[in-house]
């Protein structure tokens, strides 16, 4: 690829990192919540009165930010497959949201 073509092209790596990291954050929060409902893992109460939500949300945000930092560093100058990015991101988002739904907890036997 010539220098001129490279300077005119827009790589999607930075965007991919942002979207996928957010999707990982969403999925993490859903999974941590589901784990709490099943008694597999109980998030700590980091702020008095707020309960386990303070621990769950803090963990999910930490996972999101770490994932974003790592992915951005790896992908910022790369071009990734749109199809793979879309499927991975929306798959994780979908699962994360579903895991946070109370009817799903009851359905799964929590």
């Amino acid at each position: 690829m010539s220098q001129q073509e490279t300077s005119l092209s827009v790589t999607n790596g930075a965007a991919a990192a942002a979207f996928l990291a957010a999707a990982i954050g969403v999925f993490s929060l859903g999974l941590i919540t589901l784990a709490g409902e099943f008694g597999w893992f109980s998030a700590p109460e980091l702020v008095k009165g707020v309960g386990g939500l303070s621990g769950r949300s803090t963990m999910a945000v930490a996972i999101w930010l770490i994932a974003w930092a790592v992915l951005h560093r790896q992908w910022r100058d790369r071009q990734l497959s749109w199809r793979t990015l879309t499927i991975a991101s929306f798959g994780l988002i979908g699962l994360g949201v579903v895991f946070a739904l109370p009817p799903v907890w009851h359905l799964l036997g929590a």
Partner: protein
Amino acid sequence: MNLFTERSIWTMVHGIILGGGVMAAFTVALYCMWSVRAADGPSPVVHRQCRFLGRTLLVLAVALWLVVLIGTYVNFAPYRAAAPEGADLSQYPKSFIQSNESTDWLHSFGMELKEHLPWMAAMLVTAVAFVALRYNERLIGEHRLRGLMAAVLLVSFSLSGVVALLGIFINKVAPLT
């Protein structure tokens, strides 16, 4: 009833001022996304729209995080405070809601969603805002990127809309005063 207690004011800041502002900002951002898409090609107007989109999404992300943080760390603890024996349950929203079969779902379903979905929406909107600010006018030629941004924004808007509606129901039945 005193409408302007500290708890009531924080609830209004969370729900009406910031929450209402967030819903309005979502609408503006979605319209901006559409107007960039609908443009005939690069022009000074579209360039300005891209910059405006980035700023709008930044304001939306900040407002949404404030809604989430105030809701979690200011309003949630008084909402879920355990009512002492014989206490007036109207001062303890969670206990009040759970004391009646017809309103119990507001906590077991409504508040459970309100605990987690807004955090998800905030993370997603932050990603969209970052992309808009980083790519700026380069978004004009990137229809797949804009499509992904719009889709994620719509998901966030839907999540936020659902929790906003549930918040209205909860506050109507058991307001924080």
